[in-house]
């Protein structure tokens, strides 16, 4: 099942082919390398946007990250837990 986390995280991202792509993030004192971005979408919040990323780590664990353009910050929204 998915577990809501909603915690701020530090993310290393690159801009590639005109799109933002997260590479690694730090959560719970652990650096997590992103193996694959499986989906991206966005939500309009007034004149600003939140960009969402569905990502998998090296062990294919699922994470959902969100980049909030209003305050240029990243949040870990949810993870999959067995």
């Amino acid at each position, binding site marked *: 099942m998915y577990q809501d986390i909603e915690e701020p995280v530090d993310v290393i991202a690159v801009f590639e082919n005109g799109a933002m792509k997260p590479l690694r993030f730090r959560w719970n004192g652990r650096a997590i390398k992103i193996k694959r971005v*499986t*989906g991206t*979408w966005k939500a309009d919040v*007034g*004149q600003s946007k939140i960009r*969402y990323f569905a990502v998998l780590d090296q062990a294919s664990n699922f994470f959902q990250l969100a980049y909030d353009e209003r305050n240029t910050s990243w949040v870990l929204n949810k993870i999959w837990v067995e």
Partner: protein
Amino acid sequence: MNKKRKFCANDRTRKDQLEKSGRKIIMHLDMDAFFASVEQAHDPRLRGKPVIVGGVPGGRGVVSTCSYEARKYGVRSAMPTARAVKLCPEGIFIHTSANKYSHVSLSILSILNEYSPNVEPFSIDEAFLDVTETAERFGGPKQLALQIKNRIREKHNLTASIGIASVRFIAKIASSISKPDGLTIIEPGREKEYLWPMPICNLWGVGPKSEEAFKRIGIKTIGDLARFPKHRLKRYFGIVGETLRDMANGIGEDEIRPFYDEPEVKSMGHEHTFERDISNPDLISGMLLFLSEKVSHRLRQSNFRCKTITIKVRHSDFRLKSREATLVMPTDCAVTIYQCARLLLVKNRFMERPIRLIGVSVSKLEKNAVESQLELMANPHGRQIVVDRVIDSLKSKYGEHMICRARARMVFQ
């Protein structure tokens, strides 16, 4: 120009016949278990598992979509979540994420637009395309359909089922014949072969009630309807009976309405299902104001005013009731809509029993003229209209949920 009457002309059966028949080539694309498939594409561990998108266990929502694995347990769209939990306790229940699915849907539409200028989005997971003029360029309708399916699979890891025919409703039926990941082409002249053995409920526009009515007069299949005397159908079902009989004979619309040619909006509305049945008049009124604000905001965004206001109420017995009132002057003011809706609620004694669902919608829409200062001053709700404008500007800058009237906010506390 009505081309549909030429339908029964020839009976050639080659795959490229559609192109050469002089009739239109209409394609219907239907994404397979769309919301659930998007979730499975984003999280591959969900593949092969019963994924149910919509309400979550313990809540009162309904299933929006479920994966094919969940369908094996009997779970279906629009089924209350509580029932889905009983049928499929090991199901993975996921909240609907409208932004996520809209984003994928728009991306798929942009792929479709590369194959035809005439693309009609029919819902978030369905679209019609007229490929009469473009199919040749991609190697014919079949090759074009395969290309579209591959592009969608490559970009989103999703499958789509496609139906091709010379009229819309047959293309739609064709897309449902071999789901998931299907491709069915029904050539002109072979419609009856496909349609007639099908149960009558497969015909577009025949729901459970009309299916029952048809069965009462001995119509069980589409073929039965096609052969039924026209004058008797008209007597039983009116003009609808005649139209359905035409459809059963393969006659239907072949016009595609691209998104930029959409008919104008006729109504707009919002509704809310409470987590538990509500009797508290303050909470009910607060929700009514919240919904009225949402509707009025949409009216102003689209530059409309409305004359008719309708409320919809579902009590715990699941019976749905609606009442409407028409104003003398059109409005886009949240308070005017709320006051009218509340009056309908009180006058019809809807608050005397616990309420499960409540909705506000508006219709008889008119394009808004620019309101002068004098009109604003003459309007009894002039001050509220100014408040609405301030709320609009704050919402457009900071987001939909940034501000609302205090009475409306209390429903979420």
